[in-house]
């Protein structure tokens, strides 16, 4: 442990009652034998450190204090590893007005006791970032994952063992206010599924009437499965930056996204940017009441509504494209005729998956009746 850091541990036979300054001035620091930083829970980081305490026979005071270190004081615990049967923790007390606690231990005989101190430490964590480099034909990518350790806890760690959710523990030194980035894994040849997505609730129906450009979001999806070279572990959430090879030994940057946690078997969807070369224009061709039912007073109490939506999709690209088009029909309804098959995602959401040929202009029509509408 570096002397400049502000956490210290000392042992004394003196009773509590000394001032904080006095405790700090007493230098009886046992060496830290092993430190483990466990970063498997994003909410809090567990630090475990082992020490050898030289205990006298009888009652011993072990004073643990900290200043400028973000320790959750309720989380601090002391476990006697060896000799566990000869040392008993009697109580823990907290001196007033400072970051400190005092353990009272009793030893059956004078001994060197190996103990483990465990606590939750704030402001030390890890980030995961990804870099994807797609082939020029966008069929596959090289996925590299980087781990960034950030330490703003107030404590320097030298040669600590770092444990993550999975994978081998590794030894790493990291100082207070330091960030350290390292390659976590690298996997080439991961298949890419590229899709364009248009959502009737989010996008304007007639982009030609707008003065601003309307882009259609473009996604890369990669499966966290063995077949694609992944699938060993979940992919943690983190920023993904995607590049594409340009065929001349260089790359361009395609875009970035934070796709969220991806369990094994699921897909990581990365929104890379927008395409302005696929244009979707939608109009309602008719919208009229039918089967109108009235009460004795002649008022309408129930009716159906027949509607037709016509969607024109233009692919100005010289390559094929897969467009996922989402439509909504609220309430109770039945489809009379649809030009293309769809998947019902829920009661009011229809998803059409359209294969567009290069330069193709495709018209999709939906004739449906919304039923039993009450005015």
């Amino acid at each position, binding site marked *: 442990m570096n002397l400049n850091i502000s956490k210290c541990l000392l042992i004394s036979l003196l009773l509590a009652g000394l001032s904080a300054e006095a405790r700090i001035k007493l230098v009886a620091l046992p060496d830290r034998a092993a430190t483990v930083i466990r970063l498997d829970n994003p909410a809090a980081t567990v630090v475990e450190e082992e020490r050898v305490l030289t205990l006298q026979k009888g009652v011993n005071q072990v004073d643990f204090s900290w200043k400028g270190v973000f320790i959750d004081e309720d989380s601090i615990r002391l476990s006697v590893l060896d000799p566990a049967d000869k040392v008993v923790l009697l109580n823990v007390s907290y001196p007033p007005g400072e970051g400190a606690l005092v353990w009272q231990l009793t030893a059956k005989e004078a001994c060197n006791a190996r103990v483990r101190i465990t606590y939750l430490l704030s402001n030390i964590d890890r980030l995961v970032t990804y870099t994807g480099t797609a082939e020029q034909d966008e069929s596959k990518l090289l996925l590299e994952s980087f781990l960034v350790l950030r330490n703003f806890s107030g404590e320097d760690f030298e040669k600590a063992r770092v444990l993550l959710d999975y994978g081998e523990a590794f030894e790493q030194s990291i100082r207070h206010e330091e960030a350290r*980035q390292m390659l976590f894994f690298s996997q080439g040849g991961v298949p890419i599924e590229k899709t364009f997505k248009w959502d009737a609730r989010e996008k304007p129906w007639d982009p030609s009437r707008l003065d601003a450009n309307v882009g259609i979001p473009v996604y890369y999806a990669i499966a966290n499965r063995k077949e694609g070279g992944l699938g060993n572990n979940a992919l943690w959430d983190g920023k993904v930056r995607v590049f594409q090879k*340009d065929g001349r030994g260089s790359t*361009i*940057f395609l875009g970035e996204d934070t796709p969220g946690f991806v369990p094994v078997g699921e897909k990581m969807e990365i929104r890379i940017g927008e395409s302005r070369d696929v244009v979707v224009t939608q109009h309602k061709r008719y*919208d009229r009441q039918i089967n109108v039912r009235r009460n004795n007073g002649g008022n309408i109490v129930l009716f159906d509504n027949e509607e037709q939506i016509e969607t024109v999709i233009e692919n100005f690209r010289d390559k094929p494209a897969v467009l996922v088009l989402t439509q909504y029909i609220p309430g109770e309804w039945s489809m009379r005729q649809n030009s293309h098959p769809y998947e019902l995602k829920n009661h009011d959401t229809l998803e059409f998956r359209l294969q567009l040929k290069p330069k193709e202009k495709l018209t999709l029509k939906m004739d449906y009746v919304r039923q039993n509408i009450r005015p």
Partner: protein
Amino acid sequence: MRKWTASLLLLSAICLARGAWAGINLVTLPDRDSVQLTIYNSADLTLVREVRKLTLQKGLNKLSFGWANTLIDPTSLRLRAVDRPDAVDLIDVSYPPRINSEAVWTVRSKIEGEVLVEIMFFTSGISWRAFYMATLSQDEKDMLLEGYVRVSNNSGEDYANAQTRLIVGTINLLDRIAELARRREPWGRPDMYQVPLAAPMAMRAMAKTEEMEFGVAFDAVGAMAPKEIIKEGLSEYFLYTIEGTETIPDKWSKRLPSFTPVRVPVVNLYRYDEERYGPQVIRLLYFKNDKKHKLGDTPLPDGQFKVYRSVDKEQHVSYEGQSFSKYIPVEQEAELNLGTARGVRVEPKLMKTQTLNYLFNNKKNIAGYDEKQEWKVEVENYRDVPIRVEVFRPLRHQFVDEIKYAGDYGKYDRQDIMRLRFVLEIPPNTKKAFTYEVVYREGERRDVQ
């Protein structure tokens, strides 16, 4: 790139033996061999890629990279060995505490000697935009279209002999690069409020950019021909690569022609659409980005069009207006909105209104009726050139009988359930008129088939 050129240091392997944070020995200051800039126009982002020759020792080496007073995103820093990737491993990159704008790479080399490394990062402060100049012929049947790109450097760095590439397209970007560049801690702090540093001088001075005259900033002194721009599609973007290399000093801009001037056939299109423009006629120039219009090789990036018109044989021109154009994909139609038209009049008039077919309920109250409207639309071309006029007419609601129309209405189509469109071709100094009749069904009349 004077600032960070000076700050790339190769550190000795010896320092590792003396402890990870022992004093650092400067061994060499490597020169940059080449640099490539890939500049985006949809975001304040430039991908910088440079190649340097480093002399590595066998074993562990440390490389320090500093970027003080620049707008580099430190989280984007990447380093890789270009020619010997098998012999050089990047162990990690550390952002040392309490030292601003510096990263230290730890590299393990299996060989001793010179190795080419590529350093890649994002920077802010370099931008480009497209703009166009169009000169209509006297008869307005075509226009001479000139396209330009203008690259501006406000990054705080001079870029010498850089291969320059421009990206057309909209990328998904989560954070502004300029903000990442100003972070006190490159990767932020866990759950703590971020204290931004003061903006560097490069940002404060951002507005003060001088434009170089065409040709002056070219590094090839005495270049006899404009540089070629190679265009290619990558993913959903278009990449423009400027021939050779460019030198763009800080605070300077450069203008380059983006294509050879081309004479494009155009249609003078006038539009009357009250919902969109109010009660006025808008002048548009219509063309298509296709072979028929002498274009169609690449999309046209969004940019300002300044439109002039030749007025005599001495090549004098008049200014017709300007328009910001959206991105125009290959084979898509394009319209340049030149604003309110003075030489064309469109006047819709309601000539007759009549209600009929009343229905009454049991209490003898009105339950429904039809309202018939007769409209007359006059269209007059006061100009001495032929024009096309689009007249959009809104419907009050969708419950209407079939529309009847008569006169010189040109082509008619129903755009959707709420909108009619008439397209007329009008010779010079000619007036045309047409009528249309709408029957609106109100109340229970809507239920009568």
